[in-house]
């Protein structure tokens, strides 16, 4: 799009003055600044170089090679090369990242070739567009703050290029921009609140394969321990009901049923979205949740999750999820047969949803594992041939010892607890038979090692079992809970007595992991993110406070969507405002606000501060003027009164009284009581005056000598009054 304008040269229109160049350069740099860190280094470098070239051309207009380098043709060529390089770098061109990179370079090119005011205007618009692309990546508070200097620069640059006389002042353009921005803020805030929102993004961006930290749909031994070293926030939770205790905080995520001897993966990898879902919800159908024999309902908890984007389908909920997420944005979600919450589209933006869970470590199923609607859905039981033979041997021994499934599972937990197993983030590297090596040789492992070993043993003993990954625990920050990547966890689910039951072997090895979080469970020399550690340093406190601010921002600004807007309208008493109403409100408010601002500038203060005598004096002058008597510019009140008395001898008495009251009010300093009385009488006298029309008709056009009012009459009047 900008290519067209790039090839327009030489620049037409009014040429730019040199004084504007620093402004434009600063604007471009500031608009590009938020991108520097995210773009490939060579793009950032090329952009900066072009800006430097542009400035150099202005400084040394006599250098031929600079002019040559920055003319329209060379820059068009440079842009074409950029297209090729960007395509080569990303592998594709139509997508968010390459297009932003291209725009980034185009803005630099435009700056380098800008010569006229028209160019500069286009440059400013392009910079504004580039600035807004930052929000494709992040809508956090920081992203907003980072753009403020650039926004000021946009205003400043506009001001500077429109000035007839070049201004060297730095503060003047900034001050006027700041003032305009502040004045516009209330309108912007109003528009933000009431302008109709679209459910979902305006356009969908071609999806980029962004590398995000988070759980994946497969697990090898060591992948969760890697994840645990990230301090990034996975999601935040607001509890409507009391916060459950730490032992219940199992946030259910991907369920991994497939095992090939090394890697655990999901049931039906290729067709996750086509996976069968439950036809009903546990909330309405209790048979999933309750032991058919029992009658007690397990405790229910309600909460709202704010999930950071992770580009996958799954949503997290406390074990056992009892409802489908209720989401303002209308995102479709469902519950799969292995009780995974799945959204219809990958979570690419921060997602907020309400969720209900039963705090229970098992759920009942009418169908035996491995079969879903009559189809075999992956391997939930049975060993993998040829791998981890020692483990299988061990399982068979256990089986002989414990014929009962529950006893066997408990025996396995006891084994972990009693043998010298060590909970660590730095387990020994796994070889070909990772479970064997962990279980019998190294005895050092992280949660996935214990969960995997447990599951393999169960399966080898003929009990259906699988691994559930997710998060365990969370940290309260004021009103809400933060769950970080470092809280990632893996545990086992075992099918016993028609129910999938949760077994967490990690808890057997390191009970504090579940009770007090990972920071307490790991020795302090383990490479855990600082924030997962419990200490009371100020850095941590500051970080938590900042997280809280960000969370509010997310909740009240970024997540202000159609649903919240409708709620607001409902609360205001307009359940379904028509676009016309909204438009009228906006226009009305904007007009009112502009009026307020303009009045404030012109006559607001003078009008409010004018004392009554001044206003009454003006009224008197207006009356005389309408009656046909214009006050001379240098004429005093008494002279005017005398002239009026000559013109209207009939009204001589009221003229006398009004004039003397006005003069006394305006030129003496009567005590407040006398002053108020005078104002009252004066008002009364002015009110009882006949209309100017009548006055005009009664004008005395005869000889002025006939006037009976004299100076001494007036003067005498003052003595009576004062």
């Amino acid at each position, binding site marked *: 799009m900008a290519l067209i304008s790039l090839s327009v040269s030489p620049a037409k229109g009014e040429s730019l003055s040199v004084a504007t160049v620093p402004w434009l350069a600063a604007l471009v740099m500031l608009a590009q600044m938020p991108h520097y860190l995210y773009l490939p280094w060579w793009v950032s470098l090329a952009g900066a170089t072009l800006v430097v070239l542009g400035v150099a051309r202005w400084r040394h207009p006599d250098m031929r090679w600079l002019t040559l380098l920055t003319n329209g043709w060379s820059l068009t060529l440079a842009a074409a090369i950029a297209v090729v390089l960007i395509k080569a770098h990303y592998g594709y061109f139509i997508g968010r990242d390459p297009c932003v990179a291209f725009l980034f370079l185009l803005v630099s090119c435009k700056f380098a070739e800008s010569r006229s005011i028209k160019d500069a205007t286009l440059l400013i618009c392009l910079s504004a567009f580039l600035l807004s692309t930052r929000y494709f990546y992040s809508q956090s508070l920081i992203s907003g703050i980072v753009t403020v200097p650039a926004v000021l620069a946009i205003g400043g640059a506009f001001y500077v290029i429109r000035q007839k006389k070049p201004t060297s002042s730095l503060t003047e353009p900034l001050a006027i921009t700041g003032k305009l921005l502040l004045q516009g803020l209330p309108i912007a805030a109003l528009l933000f609140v009431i302008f109709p929102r679209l459910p979902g993004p305006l356009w969908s961006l071609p999806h980029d394969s962004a590398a995000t930290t988070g759980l994946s749909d497969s697990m090898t031994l060591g992948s969760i321990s890697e994840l645990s070293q990230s301090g990034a926030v996975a999601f935040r939770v607001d509890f409507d009901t009391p916060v459950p205790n730490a032992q219940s905080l199992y946030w259910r995520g991907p369920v991994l049923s497939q095992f090939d001897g090394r890697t655990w993966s999901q049931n039906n990898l290729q067709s996750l979205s086509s996976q069968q879902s439950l036809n009903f919800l546990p909330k309405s159908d209790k048979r999933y949740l309750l032991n058919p024999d029992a009658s007690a309902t397990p405790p229910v908890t309600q909460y709202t999750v704010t999930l950071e984007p992770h580009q996958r389908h799954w949503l997290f909920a406390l074990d056992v999820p009892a409802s489908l997420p209720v989401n303002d944005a209308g995102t479709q979600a469902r519950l799969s047969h292995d009780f995974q919450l799945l959204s219809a589209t990958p979570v690419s933006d921060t997602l907020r949803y309400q969720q209900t869970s039963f705090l229970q470590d098992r759920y009942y199923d009418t169908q035996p594992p491995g079969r879903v609607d009559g189809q075999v859905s992956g391997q939930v039981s049975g060993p993998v041939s040829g791998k981890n033979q020692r483990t299988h041997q061990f399982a068979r021994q256990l089986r002989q010892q414990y014929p009962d499934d529950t006893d066997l599972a408990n025996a396995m937990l006891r084994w972990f607890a009693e043998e010298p197993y060590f909970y660590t983030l730095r387990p020994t590297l796994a070889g070909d038979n990772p479970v064997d090596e962990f279980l019998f040789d190294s005895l050092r492992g992280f949660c996935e090692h214990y969960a995997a070993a447990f599951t393999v043993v169960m399966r080898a003993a003929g009990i259906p079992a699988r691994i559930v990954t997710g998060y365990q625990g969370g940290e309260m920050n004021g009103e809400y809970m933060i769950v970080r990547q470092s809280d990632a966890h893996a545990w086992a689910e075992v099918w016993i007595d028609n129910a999938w039951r949760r077994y967490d072997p990690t808890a057997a090895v390191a009970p504090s992991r579940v009770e007090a979080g990972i920071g307490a469970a790991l020795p302090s020399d383990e490479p855990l993110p600082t924030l997962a550690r419990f200490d009371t340093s100020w850095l941590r406190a500051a970080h938590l406070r900042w997280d809280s601010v960000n969370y509010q921002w997310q909740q009240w600004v970024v997540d202000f969507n159609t649903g919240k807007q409708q709620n607001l309208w409902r609360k205001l008493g307009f359940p379904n405002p028509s676009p016309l109403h909204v438009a009228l409100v906006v226009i009305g408010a904007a007009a009112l606000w502009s009026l307020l601002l303009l009045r404030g500038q012109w006559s607001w203060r003078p009008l409010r501060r004018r004392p009554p005598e001044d206003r009454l*004096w003006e009224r008197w002058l207006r009356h005389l003027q309408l009656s046909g008597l214009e*006050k*001379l*510019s*240098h*004429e*005093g*009140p*008494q*002279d005017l009164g005398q002239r009026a008395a000559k013109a209207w001898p009939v009204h001589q008495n009221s003229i006398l009284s009004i004039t003397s009251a006005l*003069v*006394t009010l*305006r*030129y*003496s*300093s009567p005590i407040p009581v006398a002053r108020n009385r005078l104002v009252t009488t004066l008002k009364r006298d002015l009110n009882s005056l006949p209309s100017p029309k009548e006055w005009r008709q009664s004008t005395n056009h005869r000889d002025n000598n006939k006037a009976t009012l004299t*100076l001494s009459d007036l*003067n*005498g009047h*003052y*003595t009576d009054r*004062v």
Partner: protein
Amino acid sequence: MNTTSDIAIHPASHPASDGHALDQVVDALGAILIGKEHQVRLAVATLIAEGHLLIEDVPGVGKTTLAHALGHVLALPARRVQFTSDLLPGDITGLSMFNTDTREFDFKPGPVFTSVLLADEINRAPPRAQSALLEAMEEKQVTVDGTTYTLPEHFFVIATQNPTDQLGAYPLPESQLDRFLTGITLGYLAPEEEKALLAGGSRLSVAQQANPLSNPEQISRWRAQASKITVADRLLDYVLALLNETRKQGVAPGGHGLSPRAGLKLIAIARAWALLNHRTMVIPEDIQAVFGPVAGHRLTGSVKAGKTLCQSIIERIPLDQ
């Protein structure tokens, strides 16, 4: 030689109430100087404002009569000094003479030791004699041979000046003109008034027969009353605008606008003018009425030329818009 003449002092018989007394004084003076009510009021206002009066006019229009009338009506001792080209400072201030009997120097006070002093045709005298008088006016004291003599409390000089285009005149420099609070002209009379004048005979003898209607104590009271008269803030702004206008390039022919002292004096006499009109506040009309007499001679060196200039200045400055 100079001519001096004494005017008899009459004690005030029955001073009426202050306000009425002031009216009576003005009326009485108006009866003596027919058709000169405005000038009479200005003269009285100047006296109350503790200033000195400069009358600029051709001989024979009643300057001397005004001085005598003032002295008589206000019951103040009045004297007249005729300024001539050979007048010496000692002729005004007085001399120390050697007394052969006592073998000491005796100070013989000059005509300046009086209340109302009429300095007739002041611009006929050489500058040395002029400045002797002007110093007495400013400091209200006279120093002769190292001894300082204080002048009476109500020392009031009425100086007359022939229009400077007449022969044999030493025009007063602008700095000296500044010593006179007001400058007025008397001018010729309207025909009827002149006819009444002609019918009535010598005005000077009428003046000398006038009854005293006041006394020095009452003058002091008038001065105290005048100083209490309110001048509103907005009026000060108006005065400021007038002063600034005189200071603008090309307004005053002499090149200098009114000084801050002139501004103070303008307000002082405006207060006296308000008192004459029985008001407790100064109104813009007061300022306008006294502005010409105060500013005219200061700006142009001539009362007559100043009159037109001041009127145009007043008309240029908007008021109460």
